[in-house]
């Protein structure tokens, strides 16, 4: 999960796990200072995740606050074999989804406009062309990262959310289906369409327009 970004390598992981275990023990014992330490340690990565889901900074901060309140109330149920960051990430994603459900939807373009078109014989109407550079090279450029983020924001909401959950937050198909209350098959269909639409939106930029 991206909430773990930057936590890699066995010594770092061990030390993080040990700090987390200590923090959880203090929280479960009702140590109020431990809660502030938890917030200081974990709120920034959670805020970054919330900003991806919610379009306003205010909503993102409110979702983070909701998540910490939920975590505080259910810390007794935290399983010691789980990672604290993973547990908080799941709570935050649910808080973001809850907020999205209550928000008024903006008018959006139909996803079909971004899907490939086929002739009667089943072949592509407009043949696809290779992109100029590898994804790894392109995504190193801040300008390109901005284009990609803007393109993700243009996806119709139900597709954008599935793409965020599956490809960016790296939840499984089953976890995503459960979080959204839809079938695993619906997740697969939405994810494939979201990727296709995103590809269509990026295509003109990746064939020379960014340079």
């Amino acid at each position, binding site marked *: 999960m991206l909430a773990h970004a930057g936590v890699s390598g066995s010594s770092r992981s061990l030390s993080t796990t040990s700090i987390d275990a200590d923090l959880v023990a203090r929280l479960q014992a009702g140590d109020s200072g431990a*809660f502030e330490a938890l917030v200081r340690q974990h*709120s*920034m990565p959670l805020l970054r995740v919330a900003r991806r889901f919610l379009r306003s900074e205010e909503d993102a901060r409110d979702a983070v606050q909701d998540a910490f309140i939920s975590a505080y*109330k259910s810390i007794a149920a935290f399983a010691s074999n789980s990672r604290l960051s993973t547990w908080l990430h799941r709570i935050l994603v649910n808080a973001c989804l809850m907020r999205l459900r209550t928000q008024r939807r903006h008018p959006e373009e139909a996803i079909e406009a971004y899907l490939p078109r086929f002739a009667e014989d089943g072949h*592509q109407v407009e043949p696809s062309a290779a992109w100029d550079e590898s994804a790894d090279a*392109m995504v190193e450029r801040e300008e390109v990262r901005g284009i990609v983020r803007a393109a*993700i924001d243009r996806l119709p909401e139900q597709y954008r959310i599935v793409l965020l959950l599956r490809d960016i937050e790296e939840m499984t198909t089953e976890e995503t289906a459960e979080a959204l209350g839809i079938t695993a098959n619906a997740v697969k269909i939405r994810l494939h369409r979201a990727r296709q639409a995103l590809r269509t939106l990026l295509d003109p930029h*990746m064939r020379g327009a960014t340079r």
Partner: protein
Amino acid sequence: MSKRPYLPCREIIAFLADYLDGALALETRSKFDRHLAVCPSCVAYLASYRDTIRMAKGASRDADAGDPPEELVRAIVASVRRE
């Protein structure tokens, strides 16, 4: 295309995610590979579809976390004290 592949592009693109996940039956995968061997358009589509996934991930990559906004920390701590 010089030769008509057994599966049309529509079928290839519809099942691309399963192809990349290795979730296709061996026989279907062979049909995919036969199509890709003669269809540069689908080869380009497959590569850019794969790149799209990597770029979505890369563009959302977190930079160093930095410090959380102080007012957010205070608001969260205060809200829990009120609970």
